């Protein structure tokens, strides 16, 4: 049994580390690391709680990657792009850091949308230009959060297969290690309001996750949007059983379809946390609700995550919900109001962790 769970919470003002013993009921929190910096993304080391990579940014000073190997006492900065090597597109923010199946290989997804790769555990980086050479690239349009590459998924059995998601552009997949990419949006409702004239590049994907036990099954939280003047809305949660080739709506029983985060446990539990709508990105009636499906989206169970006696008039961003790998599954959700809600039993019961933080951007958990 794991002795300890560590939860790292990235906010607009630093990263906060919570720790719990094995019961995941009692939590401590430490003073923030990097409190002057916006922490947009994180990658924890499952072997070492003191080793952390973070993507930081600042309104004035811009983005860099940072790494600590001593729990935040010292940091090393790693620019993705040297200042004397201008790229074709501005580098505004590091949205995602992901470890690939290949030894020592990391990927970073950034805004403006591009994919960077490192083959030395993050010490040096280069742009994976195969994606940004896609013919639709001139027509990529940003969502409200910018033109961001926010999700990177791998096939652990075939390192040449990868998927990325870009807002408000779509899903792209590669089967040749990133040399060429194919748009994978069939079955999604196109969004002409992105302004893109390209039918391969008008889909606002909020998050995708991949089923580790069933190679070609993926799930998506899509930007459910108003389709007609009378308020008809598109679906928001989708499933693909052919590695993104086609998508089918699975949100018939979800009363709200708009949302950002999505998480999938290795046991197949799928979690979403819907918000009212794209016009009103907050929890409905001040009640943070998590929905869980254990049958690939056929049915959903409502789980009240917030306190029963106090409304929570905030929302949640796409990387602010995560799971641990314990039994039963631990679920963690950080809000735009700075609350962190945690469940040690797959969402059946919840507690609010003991701190009010700045606006939460990303949450990651590991057991040690």
């Amino acid at each position, binding site marked *: 049994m794991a002795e300890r769970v560590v939860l790292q919470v990235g906010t607009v003002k630093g990263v906060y580390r919570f720790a719990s013993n094995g019961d995941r009921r009692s939590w401590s929190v430490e003073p923030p690391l990097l409190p002057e910096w916006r922490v947009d993304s994180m990658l924890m080391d499952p072997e070492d709680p003191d080793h952390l990579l973070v993507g930081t940014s600042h*309104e*004035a*000073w811009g983005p860099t990657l940072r790494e600590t190997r001593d729990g935040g006492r010292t940091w090393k900065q790693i620019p993705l*792009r040297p*200042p004397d090597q201008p790229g074709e597109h*501005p580098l505004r923010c590091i949205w995602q850091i992901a470890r690939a199946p290949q030894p020592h290989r990391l990927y970073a997804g950034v805004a403006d949308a591009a994919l960077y790769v490192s083959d030395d555990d993050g010490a040096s980086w280069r742009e994976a230009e195969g994606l940004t050479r896609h013919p639709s690239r001139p027509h990529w349009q940003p969502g409200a959060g910018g033109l961001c590459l926010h999700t990177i998924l791998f096939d652990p059995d075939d390192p040449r297969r990868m998927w990325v998601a870009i807002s408000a552009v779509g899903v792209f997949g590669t089967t040749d290690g990133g040399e060429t990419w194919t748009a994978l949006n069939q079955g999604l409702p196109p969004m002409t309001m992105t302004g893109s004239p390209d039918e391969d590049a008008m889909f606002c994907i909020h998050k995708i996750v991949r089923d580790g036990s069933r190679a070609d099954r993926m799930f998506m939280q899509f930007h459910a949007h108003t389709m007609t003047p009378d308020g008809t809305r598109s679906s928001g949660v989708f499933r693909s059983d052919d590695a993104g080739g086609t998508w089918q709506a699975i949100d018939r029983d979800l009363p709200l379809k708009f949302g950002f985060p999505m998480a999938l446990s290795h046991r197949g539990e799928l979690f979403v946390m819907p918000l009212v709508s794209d016009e009103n990105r907050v929890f409905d009636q001040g009640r943070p609700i998590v929905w869980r499906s254990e049958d690939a989206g056929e049915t959903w169970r409502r789980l009240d995550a917030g306190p029963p006696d106090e409304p929570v008039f905030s929302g949640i961003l796409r990387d602010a919900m995560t799971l641990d790998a314990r039994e039963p599954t631990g679920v963690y959700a950080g809000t735009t109001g700075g609350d962190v809600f945690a469940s040690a039993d797959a969402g059946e019961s919840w507690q609010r962790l003991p701190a009010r933080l700045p606006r939460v951007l990303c949450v990651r958990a590991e057991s040690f």
Partner: protein
Amino acid sequence: MAHVTLEVPRVLRDCTAGRAAVELEADRLDAASDAIRRHWPVLATHLFTETGELRPHVLLLHNDRLTRRLQRPDVPLAAGDRLTIVQAVSGG
């Protein structure tokens, strides 16, 4: 070459091994920018855009004078001059 001092705000001092000020050899303002890129590349990442201009909310003062108003990059520097990196006051 003039010996000038570059003053670094606290939030960026991990780019200069913790030092509040570093020395540069440069006889013009544009040469000082080049020297920052050459000797302090991580610091330069925080100061300059991909196209080589100062980031929009970053100010560089020359002996307490705003260099943005100097219009020209070939402003001469003299020994003992100070360059100061400042975050612009902006926002609400």
